[in-house]
Each structure stands twice: as structure tokens, then as C-alpha cells.
């Protein structure tokens, strides 16, 4: 079994107790014609395969925010390292997306993207610094740029922005 399938299976177990049994076998989105906004809006939590050649990553997992730490633990156990954490501001849907990139050191190539959607007002996420120590700076950076509060983070002060910064420049409604 390739690492992609193993990882997919492991991550799928997160969603089993969610009653919707169709989630695991959700087909990859074939049509990209419809706008990404609608597609993201209807997407249910679950893991889907992506076409590496066109997308640049293999697995795309959408999780609820209470499943996030568990997902990170699964990936850590499978030998993934953390590449980056970032956010995307979907201002039209009034949502923030946090994107976690994971990759592997060995030759079985598998890039995993874990996404979480959270409301734009009062965005909170659990920290994964307990699993990946290196998430510390990435989470601080995401907090800087998007204002996402990572609950349980040991040292959530501005990293790249000045220490007294109270603005979040990558939000779409930010005006300099």
C-alpha cells in the first residue's frame, strides 16, 4: 500500500463517527469550472485525492477544528514534517481558512494539505505546537497576518510584525 493510501485511510478514520458514510469515498472534484467559492462552500469534511501534476499536492483533508490536533498527531506518527501554516481570507463567505502543509522526508512522495474553516469574527483554533514544535512560529505568523487565535499556544505574540501591532495585514479588508 502506498503511503498516500495509508495516510488517506488513517486520516479518514477521523471522519467515520460523523454519521455521513459517503464522506470517505468522495470523488476528486473533476470540474473546476464552477467557481472555487461555491465548491469550497459545499465541501464536507473529509479526505480527497488530488492530481499532483496540476495541483502540486496529493491529499487534501478538510477537517473540523476539533479534529485538527488529532490529524496532526496522525501525520506526525506517519513521519510527516510540517512545511508551513497559513491562512486564506474568504471575505465573501465570511470565513477564514487555515491551511496546514505537510510533507515527507523519504522518497515516497506525499504532500498533505489540511484545511480548517473558521468564522471570520472571533477566529479560534487549537494549537498543534504540542505535536509539532515547529508550528510555533508558523502559528504566530498566522496570528500576525490573519488574527487567528491559537488556543493553548505558549507564546502568541507578534513575530514578524512589530510587537505592538494590532492589525492583521493579510485580511482582505485591511487598509494600510
Amino acid at each position: 500500500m502506498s503511503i498516500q493510501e495509508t495516510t488517506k485511510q488513517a486520516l479518514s478514520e477521523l471522519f467515520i463517527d460523523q454519521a455521513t458514510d459517503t464522506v470517505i469515498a468522495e470523488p476528486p472534484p473533476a470540474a473546476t469550472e464552477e467557481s472555487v467559492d461555491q465548491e469550497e462552500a459545499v465541501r464536507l469534511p473529509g479526505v480527497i485525492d488530488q492530481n499532483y501534476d496540476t495541483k502540486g499536492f496529493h491529499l487534501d483533508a478538510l477537517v473540523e477544528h476539533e479534529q485538527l490536533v488529532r490529524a496532526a498527531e496522525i501525520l506526525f506518527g506517519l513521519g510527516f514534517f510540517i512545511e508551513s501554516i497559513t491562512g486564506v481570507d474568504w471575505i465573501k463567505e465570511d470565513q477564514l481558512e487555515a491551511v496546514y502543509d505537510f510533507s515527507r522526508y523519504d522518497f515516497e512522495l506525499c504532500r498533505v494539505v489540511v484545511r480548517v474553516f473558521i468564522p471570520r469574527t472571533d477566529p479560534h483554533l487549537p494549537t498543534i505546537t504540542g505535536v509539532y514544535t515547529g508550528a510555533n512560529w508558523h502559528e504566530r505568523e498566522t496570528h500576525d497576518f490573519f488574527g487567528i487565535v491559537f488556543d493553548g499556544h505558549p507564546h502568541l505574540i507578534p513575530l514578524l510584525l512589530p510587537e505592538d501591532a494590532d492589525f492583521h495585514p493579510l485580511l482582505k479588508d485591511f487598509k494600510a
Partner: protein
Amino acid sequence: MSQPIELQKDETFVLNVGPQHPATHGVLRVKMTMDGENIYNAETVLGYIHRMHEKMAENRSYPQYMPNMGRLDYLSAMAFNHGYALVVERAAGIEVPERAEYIRVITVELNRVSSHLVWLGAFVLDLGGFTPLMYCFDDREQILDLLESVTGSRLTYCYFRFGGLYNDIDDEFIAGTHVFIKRMRKELKMYAKLVTGNIILMKRLKEHGPIDRDMCQRYGATGPVARGSGIDYDVRKNEPYSVYPDLDFDIPVYHECDSFARYMVRMDEMEQSLRIIEQALEKLPEGPVNPKKKPKIIKPPPGDYYAAVETARGNFGIRLVSDGTKNAYRLKLRSPTYSNMHLFDEACRGMLLADALAFMGSLDLVIPEMDR
């Protein structure tokens, strides 16, 4: 040797290394809590050269953003350009002619050698040896001259275009590169004698600055830092892009997990880069360097795309979120030293100040790339 010492929190003082300090090579600030000359902990303070490149990406069209890439990592600007070109080509589905791919590889590898040369000089300077810096800069000068004759600039090349290149290389460049490879092989032997073999250097690097595999995984360290810890991870091999699969080269891996291992990885990488350049020059096909048909205005279909390249410092990844317009909706730059520097705090505890700064040098930091 830095034996584990019981450090007392209540007997410490804070030493500000940076933002203006000779060892930080730029405006990095490390707030070290010290017990005597031993480090109790070190908090890195970033952001002194933060320019919000990611926001700029949202306000510029795709081709307009290309020059920004050279400003991220001024030492391996070519590789950063390559990463950005890759992700946009992947998103917009632009084909690259083969000759352009080969020339990309040649220039990126030349740039990698020049970047490692600066690192070598600066690293030995950190250790107190001044002369190798001058030799390194002399050698690097040859590369910069070569690249300048092709791209027109010396540091922030901005040489790649989506689907191709700014312009073609000429015979003069090819001849010059062959001369350079010959010279560099000789110089590498000289460095081995002058620097690598030196007992003082070995004593300072061997068994100092330990980074093990687990630590790399937790922090996401890549590049020579990971390869010095026994992880054979190199994007050029693990996730082949461009024409790297057609070229024969090795990834140097050392299992000692110390500063000397990282040092040796980079020294060997220069040799491997020369090999790559030599082969690429040999295989260089004729043909155009820009695709015949290319969209006039680049508007990738909505969705998110990812591409990674191996820069001189490690895995540089770009996540591009497109909404179908001519500007990126969101562009995330995953810079390698950001993760590599992050582990400094954990790794340097209990070290002597001199060793910690040598360790910092072995991480090969480029601050603008970290702060973005």
C-alpha cells in the same frame, strides 16, 4: 567541550545578539539568556526586515511579482524565481521548452554554488578566519560575471519568465562556464586544505550543534540542515521538477548530526552542482527558450496550487490560491531558513556563546528570506 551544565535561571543575564551584530549577518536579533558564557535559552526576534511580500503578491499581476522573488533570498535568487515560475506554470498550464529547462538548471546550479561560496566565506568569518572569505568572493565573482553576461544583473536576476526565460545563453557563456568548472574544482581542493582539514575548525564543529532527525521532523528543517542529520531529503530528488530526473547527481548525506556534517554537506553539494552543470551543458538541446503560444495575460483557473524547489538553503514552497483574476488571491511563501532557524532555541541550550554562534553560522541564514 559543552558538557551538560546545570544552569541556574536566577543567575542569568540577557545578552542581545543583534539586530546589529557581526554574527547575525543582517538584522536578526537573538535575545539570549545567559548563565556566564552558557546559554540558558535564546529567543529569536524576527521582523526587522519584514516587507510583507505576500500582500504585495495580492496587489501585483503575476509577471509583475517576479522581481520580488529575488529580493527574498538575495543569495539564491535564481532558485526562488524558479519556484515562483513553477507554481504559476503549474497553475496556468504553461509548457516550458526543453532548452529553457536546461538553462534554468544551469543557472540555478551556478547560483547555488555562488550561494554556498558566500556561506563558506561568511561561516569561516564567523569562526574568526578572514582569508577564506576573500577567496570565496573571488570565486563567486566568476559566477556573478557569468550570470551577469546572461541576465544583465548580478544579484537579483529576475531571469525566468513564465514558460521560458528572459533571453537565451550564448557560446561565450558556455565556454566561460566550462572554464569556471575547471577552476572551481581546483579551488575546492584548496578549500579542503585551507579550511576543511584545519584542526581548529574541526574541533569547533565536530560534535557541536546537534540536530537529530526527530528535531528536523518537528521543526520541518530542510536542506543541508536536514541532510547533515542523516535525512536524504532533497526536493530535486524526492519531488523531481524541471529536468533534474535526467541528470545524474548524488545528494550528500552525513549522519553525524553536528555542525561539521552540515559543513560537509554544503562542500559536497558544490561538487555535485558542478557535475549537474557539466551534464546539463552537454545535453543542452537546440531550440527556442520561450514557448510558442503563451497566454498574454496570465489568469490561472481558480483553485490552489503548490510547488516546491530546492534552494541553496532547503525546501522553498509556494502555495498559490487563485481566484481566476490576474492577481493572486493569496500567495504563501514557505521559506527554508524560517523553519531552520526555529530550531536554534532548542538546539543551542547549554552551549557556549562561541559555539552557538558557530552553530548559527552552520544553519546558513539569510534574513530577508526569513522575514519576507
